[in-house]
């Protein structure tokens, strides 16, 4: 029996694409930091602390991306049970947690200056925290509950249900009011300076690329772990001992 092994060229192509993505993400991120630091104006009422905005909002958007990946992967796994879907769901949940934690740290730091308090039980803040906690639960479940089919299915159900909170976060400001700014959505005052808009766009681009890199990387690690499990099985069949 020949061991299935991807050819070198087939393995190298995604490696190269991944490396290019990493380089592009790094360049874009450094460019965004530079632009936000030196080109975006200081906001009239809040001062320099408003520059948190250029990373806080894109991080929230990236949390949505991770959560969406988790939802798609979970739904796919529940539908056909392939490990690739499960790996996507797991990667998405980890990205959602990382980005969600960034949102929950940067937001209160901004609020400390703008509102005078770090935290208030505003609808958007509360629903965001709830969502992050859901994805933390997912990640903890995957870390400690084993890797059997039942655990994967349970986690997939959590991944599908966890996505239900995302539209609630998005529309909470519009439906229930609260303190959270609404400058991007139509109900808010908007962003009037073109450099502010450009800074935000660059932030979105950078965080999209960062989320893509993290997702892809975690996916590669999960697929490598699956491959390792196959190799270990093969080694056992050949009677190769462990050290």
């Amino acid at each position, binding site marked *: 029996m020949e061991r299935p092994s991807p050819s070198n060229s087939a393995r190298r192509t995604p490696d190269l694409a991944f490396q290019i993505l990493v380089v592009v993400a790094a360049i874009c991120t450094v460019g965004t930091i530079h632009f936000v630091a030196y080109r975006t104006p200081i906001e009239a009422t809040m001062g320099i602390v408003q520059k948190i905005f250029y990373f806080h909002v894109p991080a929230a958007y990236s949390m949505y991306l991770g959560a969406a990946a988790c939802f798609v992967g979970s739904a796919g796994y529940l539908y056909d049970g392939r490990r690739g879907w499960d790996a996507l769901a797991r990667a998405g949940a980890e990205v959602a947690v990382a980005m969600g934690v960034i949102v929950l740290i940067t937001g209160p730091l901004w609020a400390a200056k703008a*509102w005078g308090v770090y935290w208030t039980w505003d609808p958007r803040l509360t629903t965001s925290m709830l969502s992050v906690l859901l994805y933390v639960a997912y990640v903890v479940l995957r870390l400690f509950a084993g890797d059997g089919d039942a655990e994967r299915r349970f986690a997939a159900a959590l991944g599908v249900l966890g996505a239900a909170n995302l539209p609630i976060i998005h529309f909470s400001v519009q439906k229930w009011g609260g303190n959270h700014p609404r400058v991007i959505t139509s109900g808010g*005052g908007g962003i009037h300076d073109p450099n502010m808009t450009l800074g935000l766009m660059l932030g979105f681009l950078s965080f999209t690329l960062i989320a893509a890199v993290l997702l892809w990387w975690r996916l590669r690690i999960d697929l490598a772990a699956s491959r390792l499990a196959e190799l270990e099985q093969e080694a056992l069949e050949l*009677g190769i001992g462990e050290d």
Partner: protein
Amino acid sequence: MKIDIIPPSATAAPAASTSNSAAPPIVAASAPAAAAPAPPSSTQPTPTVDDRSTAFRAVEGGPQMQSGEKLLVEAYAAIWIILFALILLSWRRQRRLDDRMAMLEGAIDKARQAEARSVTMGETPKPPPQAHEGGT
């Protein structure tokens, strides 16, 4: 004199009184999020110089003493620390998996070659090598 102005979106926040105006903070007291206690200055008389020299009184939601620059640096530091931590963890996990896979692949290849050699020479297959002998 520097004056902090509360943005429209932030006026509803509890304890958002940052104005240097002498008027009582009516906005904070009438805000929808008034579940938090209103600043005591709205119910208590303004302390005189004598009062200030003889007693210290605590106040909630007083003028902000937070530095915007410091908060900004803290926020940026948090972002990059979290991202770099995630990258570092992923990199370590990837390296561990790669090392283990390379070791197993080497051991399996050796075992297969030994098996093939023994079949072509008509010998009884030797026992397979141990994984730690596999090298890379």
